[in-house]
C-alpha cells in the first residue's frame, strides 16, 4: 500500500506572509493581512490541478488572531468546499496550543472542521464534527490507510458509514477515486514533515 494518490504541496504561511504582505510583519494579524495570505495560497494552488492536498505550515507564525484565522483557515476551506470543479484537501501544520483556540473558534463558527498537526507528529480533527465523525476519523488516523473491504468491515454500522461519507465530502479524509482506499490525510503528507 505505497500508493500516493495525491502529490501534496507544502506552503509555509510565515514565508507567504513575508512575501505577500511585507517582510516587516512577523504576526498573522488583521483581516487584510489574512486576506492577502489566503489569496497568495490560492494563487499557489491554481497550478495544482483539480485534485490537490496542501500542507499549510504555521510553524513560523508567532501570533494568529481570530480575524486572520477566519481568513486563512475558515475562508480558505470554505472557498474550496464551495468549488465543485476542484477537490482540495488541507492539513494545517504547526497549530500549537497558542494558535489552536483561534482556529477552532473560527471553524466552529463557520460549521467547518480541519485536520491539524497539534504537536509534532500528532494530528487532530478540530472544529465542528459529530461524535461519530470524530470516532471514525480517529480510527482512520490510527490505521493510516484502509482498503475498501476493510472500511466496510470496520465501519459496519449505518451511522459509521454516514460519518465516513461525511468525512470524505468535508475533505477530512481522502478516498482514492481509483482504488477506493481511504487515506488519513496525515499519512499523505508525512514525507513532507
Amino acid at each position: 500500500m505505497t500508493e500516493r494518490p495525491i502529490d501534496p504541496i507544502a506552503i509555509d504561511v510565515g514565508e507567504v506572509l513575508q512575501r505577500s504582505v511585507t517582510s516587516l510583519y512577523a504576526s498573522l494579524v488583521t483581516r487584510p493581512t489574512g486576506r492577502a495570505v489566503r489569496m497568495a495560497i490560492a494563487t499557489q494552488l491554481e497550478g495544482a490541478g483539480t485534485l490537490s492536498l496542501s500542507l499549510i505550515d504555521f510553524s513560523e507564525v508567532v501570533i494568529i488572531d481570530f480575524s486572520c484565522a477566519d481568513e486563512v483557515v475558515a475562508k480558505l476551506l470554505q472557498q474550496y468546499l464551495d468549488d465543485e470543479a476542484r477537490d482540495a484537501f488541507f492539513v494545517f501544520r504547526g497549530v500549537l496550543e497558542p494558535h489552536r483556540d483561534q482556529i477552532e473558534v473560527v471553524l466552529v463558527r463557520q460549521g467547518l472542521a480541519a485536520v491539524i498537526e497539534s504537536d509534532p507528529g500528532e494530528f487532530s480533527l478540530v472544529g465542528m464534527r459529530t461524535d461519530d465523525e470524530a470516532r471514525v476519523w480517529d480510527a482512520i488516523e490510527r490505521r493510516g490507510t484502509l482498503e475498501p473491504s476493510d472500511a466496510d468491515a470496520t465501519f459496519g454500522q449505518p451511522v459509521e458509514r454516514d460519518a465516513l461519507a461525511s468525512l470524505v465530502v468535508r475533505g477530512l479524509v481522502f478516498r482514492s477515486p481509483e482504488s477506493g482506499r481511504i487515506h488519513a490525510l496525515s499519512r499523505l503528507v508525512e514525507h513532507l514533515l
Partner: protein
Amino acid sequence: MVGGAGERALLDARHLRWVDPNGMVALLAAGAVAARSGGARPRIELPESADVNGYLSRMKFHEAARDVFDLDVATRRGGSGGASDVLLEITPIVANADVHEVVDRVQGQAGQILSSKLGYPSTAVVQFSVILSEVCQNIVEHAEGPGWVAAQAYNWARRLGRYVVVISVMDVGRGFRGSLADEHSARYGDRWGDTTALEAAFLHGLTRFPDSGRGQGIQQIRRQVRRWDGAISIRSGTARIGQVPEWDDTPPLVDGLAPLPGAQISIILPARAGA
C-alpha cells in the same frame, strides 16, 4: 476643559496627581474632539507633578499629544527613569499597519510582565496579543476615526490587593451606534440607541458586515477576559456595557452618561490569586 464655541480650548491638567491608561487616552480623545469642533489645536497644561510627568513620559504621552495639542513638550517633560511596568506605550491607531506594530512591539516586555506581575503562564502573551489586535482592529474596521491604545501594569493594593494590567483603547470615530445603524437599526425600531447598539455588538456579536465570520473579535475577547477573571467594558455614546467579574461592583449596563464620541474599551486583567 475651557474654551467656548470658536475659541481655542485649554485642557488644564496641572493639578493631576494620578492618571491611568484610560485617563491618558481620554485626554488625547478630548483634545481631538476639541480640535474638531474648534478648528484650532487645543492647548494642554501638563501636570506639575514630576512623578505624573515622568509616568506620562514613560507612556510616551507627549509624543502622542504633539499630534493633538499645541504643546511645547521640551519645557514640561518630566523624568523618565525608574523601573517601568509599561506593557504598551500610547500608540496611535489609524491603519492596519499600526495593529501589526502594536502586536510586534508588545511581544518582548508584555510576556515578562504578565508572568512576573500577574502570574500568568508564558503562553499568555499570545492571547494578550490577540486581544490587543482585535480591540485595535475595532478602530480601523468600525470606528472610521483615529484612536489610541495603551497598556500598563500597576498595583491595585487598596482596591484588589493585587497587580492588574489595564488595557485602554479609545477612538473618536462614529461609535457603535453609528457603525451598526445602517444594517441593524431598523429591526430595533424605536428602541435603537447607544444601549441597544452596544448590546448588539457586545452580547450578540453583530457587526455591520454581512460576512458570518465577522463579529468574533469582541466575543472572543470577552471569553478570554473571563478566563483570566478580568473585566471588560465598552463605553460609546451615552451608554456603557460591561462584563463584570465577582471582584468588581460596576453595573453591567449604564445609560444616560455624558455623550462620548467614538468608543472606549477598557480591559482590566488581575493577577492570579497568590501571584
